[in-house]
């Protein structure tokens, strides 16, 4: 393996990883896959995944996610109940529940797949839309279904639909986009943040594209085209000229050369490593795949999750855990359940309220998750989550969970948690400090385990994924 990311061979990087004696397929790597492709896995699930080959596993995770994307959550009783309150804050608990109760095995009874929920979260950040401004839980839910349905599908179709999505229209002020005063907000963001990236269009392109979207309105929570407000004149966008409609305007953007690279780069950052920015030669093969597949997402995801680079030192532990990954991940790995409304509030306090991204850019991720108040908040979150009266592990207590996993003393517990929860292993001195800590604590065994986990969650390694 090369030492420096700039000198990495793209062919090697994106070729399927096949385990070897130097780099065997083990629980640590399986845990890495589950952290990135979802929200972690239980000890038992890791054992099951070890029976399979990484490349085959990537293919089947993508297939399971595609199948799950066809199952519309509108029939979901929990969603209906949450929607009935009309409050988007409650929707967060519904979504966290889906993330927590998704299955790696492709079991249809659970309705959903970890990868699908992870990708939906990716697109939610990509097409950032905040419930505070939209102020309608139903519209936020509709958008969430849209993102889930297209998560692994055709990026072009997703972009066309999101452009007419009522929540998005409200969020980016398209509803005030009138013939006489085109509003440039959506036209700007579709090029800058959704499709192309800065530097790939001009201010003039924005103004012209904005004219295409005039007359796109929301009536009774549905998209409506108001032809009296639509500018039917000739527009010139990105070098193309015509009497473009909104759809045709989006189509012009979707055809830009910059698009596949822009999306590929963002997927690499989300699934492979936070930093540094991926060098162009590493982005290009994925961009090419995206181009050749007609902007279909699934093949790219499969390529990423099966790749050499994904399982290399360039990737493992090279991301900062997001708040959702931290909170839901902890519960997920310990087969836990809790009051997810409370969890959603906690996640908000440390910087990630789902359905409430900070702005249209979504969450910046990486280092921006971390500051004095979020680090202390993370430690407190883990502590409170573990001690909350509604929290169960394997339906019972932490003590019972440990017993079930044949963990019988603090030393074994530390080893078990290290492998299960950490992307970057603890060194020996850290382990002995933790052991000393565990031996000092007294009282109820479950409480002692909780104390140890909270301490572990305050150690720097814990925040890497």
């Amino acid at each position, binding site marked *: 393996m090369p030492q420096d990311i700039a000198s990495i061979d793209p062919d090697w990087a994106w070729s399927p990883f096949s385990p070897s004696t130097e780099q065997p397929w083990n629980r640590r790597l399986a845990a890495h896959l589950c952290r990135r492709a979802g929200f972690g896995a239980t000890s038992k699930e890791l054992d099951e995944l070890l029976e399979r080959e990484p490349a085959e596993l990537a293919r089947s995770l993508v297939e399971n996610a595609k199948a799950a994307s066809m199952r519309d959550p509108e029939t979901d009783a929990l969603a209906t109940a949450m929607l009935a309150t009309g409050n988007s804050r409650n929707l967060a608990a519904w979504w966290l529940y889906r993330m927590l109760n998704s299955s790696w095995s492709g079991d249809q009874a659970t309705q959903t797949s970890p990868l699908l929920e992870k990708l939906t979260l990716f697109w939610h950040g990509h097409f950032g839309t905040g419930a505070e401004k939209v102020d309608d839980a139903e519209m936020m839910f509709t958008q969430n279904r849209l993102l889930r349905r297209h998560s692994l599908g055709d990026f072009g179709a997703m972009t066309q639909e999101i452009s007419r999505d009522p929540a998005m229209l409200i969020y980016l002020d398209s509803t005030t986009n009138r013939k006489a005063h085109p509003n440039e907000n959506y036209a700007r963001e579709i090029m800058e943040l959704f499709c192309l990236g800065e530097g790939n269009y001009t201010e003039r392109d924005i103004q012209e594209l904005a004219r295409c979207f005039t007359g796109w309105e929301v009536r009774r929570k549905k998209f409506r085209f108001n032809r009296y407000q639509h500018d039917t004149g000739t527009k010139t966008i990105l070098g193309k000229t015509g009497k473009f409609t909104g759809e045709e305007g989006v189509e012009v953007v979707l055809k830009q050369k910059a698009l596949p690279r822009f999306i590929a780069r963002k997927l690499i950052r989300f699934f492979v490593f936070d930093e540094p920015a991926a060098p162009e030669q590493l982005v290009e093969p994925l961009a090419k795949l995206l181009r050749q597949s007609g902007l279909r997402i699934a093949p790219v995801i499969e390529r990423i999750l099966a790749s050499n680079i994904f399982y290399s030192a360039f990737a493992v532990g090279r991301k900062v855990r997001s708040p959702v990954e931290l909170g839901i991940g902890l519960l997920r790995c310990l087969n836990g359940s809790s009051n997810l409304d409370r969890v959603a509030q906690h996640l908000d306090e440390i910087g990630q309220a789902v359905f409430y991204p900070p702005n249209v850019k979504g969450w910046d991720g990486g280092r921006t998750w*971390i*500051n004095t108040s979020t680090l*202390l908040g993370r*430690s*407190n979150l883990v502590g409170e989550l573990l001690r909350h009266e509604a929290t169960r592990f394997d339906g019972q207590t932490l003590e019972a969970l440990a017993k079930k996993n044949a963990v019988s003393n603090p030393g074994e517990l530390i080893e078990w948690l290290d492998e299960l929860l950490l992307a970057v292993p603890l060194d020996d001195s*850290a382990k002995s400090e*933790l052991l000393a800590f565990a031996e000092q604590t007294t009282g109820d065994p479950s409480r002692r385990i909780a104390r140890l986990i909270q301490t572990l969650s305050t150690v720097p390694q814990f925040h890497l994924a």
Partner: protein
Amino acid sequence: MTTRRDFLKSSLGTSAVVSIGATAPQFLLQAGAAEAKPTDETILVMVQLSGGNDGLNTVAPFKESAYRKARPTLAVSAGDALKIDDSYGFHPAAKGLSNLLESDRLAIIQGVGYANPNRSHFESMDIWHTCQRKTAVRNDGWLGRFLDNTRQGDALDIPAIHLGREKQPLALSSQDIRVPSVTSLDRFRLKESAGQLRKTVTNIGKSASPGGGLLGFVQTSTGSALSASEQIEAASGRYKTGITYPESGLAQKLKTVAQLIDSGLKTRIYYVTLDGFDTHSRQAAAHEALLRELSGALDAFVRDMDEHGHGDRVLTMSFSEFGRRLQENASEGTDHGAAAPAFLAGNRVKSGLIGKHPSLHDLQDGDVKFHTDFRQLYATVLDQWLGVDSAPILGGKFTRVPALRS
């Protein structure tokens, strides 16, 4: 977003120079690391008066017959006013402002506003927060842009804190930095057996070899966070003050700000608000209570900061989205107006009245006219207090107000 954002981008290079001393301290984790230097950077505390404070009854032109005539039930009389000079005086409830003035710690900047005043609370507040009119896209605020412009790669300490339950003021919105809104010091506390936890994690950090990249970043951040929690814990235990803060909400918020400043946090911007100034009817009692709350809290805070040795580096600015109409209405209240005084409080202000009281005979739609643009006030604070170039933040150059001593 158009011009402003591009403008900001292009100006980032030049303004990154200014923030000295904001380098991340490597507190506890790396053995042998140099002790963090105590910060001596200046701090700005914003006190927003929401609802439109009646400037004419805060700094009352008691001598003018036009004032007494327009305010038959509300005018502050010459006898009641706390004299600033022979013609102007504070509302009698604003004893704290009067105390600050007597101790040379209050600059009263008169006639602050902007051209074509908007009389909607929301709109006018947004103008103050973003320096942009409604026609522009307003995604960030002036303080947010200050944060963006002075951002350091790995700055660890919280750059700004909003203290309160209300929605975070748009002034603090930034492209790149998330400002925490907190309701109490709890957000900086480790909740369970903090001492033992901190000790273990600190020991782990001491023996760890410093990681590069993200791990190194999280290691130093963890050191910083544990240190901050210890500082705040110790400070709130140790924090004693000879100053009696009033029981009011604003006073308690400012007391929390005082504790945070005294704990050694490197946060440079604090933001608090006092709501309720929309006194359309029966203004007298409500406004009296609000001015008492404002002035009592400010007075206590400024004196407290001085007592703790931070007096020379803490500046408090107070403003409202607009003033109120000269003519009182039929409900013994006042309606939305335009220009009003703003206040700067602290050891290093040029104390006294700054600029003329707006004329009561040259009104615009019944309101006194502004002569000092609020962005001049911002420019003063940005250039002279926070030490950055105000032009890229405000979208242009504004003449400074002579309100600070160098």
